[in-house]
């Protein structure tokens, strides 16, 4: 799981153009939206694309995103249980 979390942080940094950030700067338990990383709605869409592109996970219900994108750790847990690639 630690490896997946680290890889996921790298993918998030790249997909969301979080310049100046390293995986070590992201607390896997911190909120991705709001006060955590401060992501916005477009970023949420990019995360959905990221999950589909890299892990073959299609979110059919956008409301799922609220739960899945709570933190990197929650996201990684969801990916590990649902990935198809």
């Amino acid at each position, binding site marked *: 799981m630690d490896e997946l979390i680290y890889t996921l942080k790298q993918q998030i940094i790249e*997909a*969301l153009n*979080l*310049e100046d950030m390293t995986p070590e700067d992201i607390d896997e338990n911190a909120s991705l939206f709001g006060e955590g990383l401060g992501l916005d709605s*477009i970023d949420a*869409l*990019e995360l959905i*694309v990221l999950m*589909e*592109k890299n892990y073959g996970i299609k979110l059919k219900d956008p409301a799922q995103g609220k739960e899945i994108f709570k933190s990197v750790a929650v996201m990684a847990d969801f990916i590990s249980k649902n990935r198809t690639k």
Partner: protein
Amino acid sequence: MTRHSVMITPDSVMVNGKPLAHKENGAALLTELYRTYVGDYPKFFKMDTLCKLGFVASELLLQAEGEPRFVPREDRAVILFNRNASLQADTAYQATIQDPDNFFPSPAAFVYTLPNIVTGEIAIRNKYYGETSFFVMENDDASVISRQLVNAFQDPKTLSILNGWVDCFDEDHFEAHLFILDKLPTYDILEF
């Protein structure tokens, strides 16, 4: 009457006609200008090159102007012009949907597939609630630009316009030439 101007090309930066020292060229120049003279707007890194260009040019221009920033105002319009619209962002977005077997439309690329996103970014950053427009034209035609600016001043609320040319073909070919134009009591033709 114009006061203050900024010109940025891939290898030069001029503020009020004086060169600004820099190390980088091309798109890296825009990032250098952001880090050196702005630094407090991380959304910059999500912008396409056209937006980055318009944004840093407007920042240098408004810093040169020296008036209080980020105070809500309705008396300033933002009117920009270019030739290539949002071509670079369009191309980047097209690349994400080109291959049927690797079809992942990028929302972050898509949001910049309109040139007027630049005027919106500048207005949002500075709390400008006046007119914002972005005109796409074949050439940098001063008479057409003048007419649009004169028309904008027909709105009695508009007392100044952040305006000019912001064009980007790709990361190595771009040009911004921005001005602040004040409304004069009477005039018919603007001279550039």
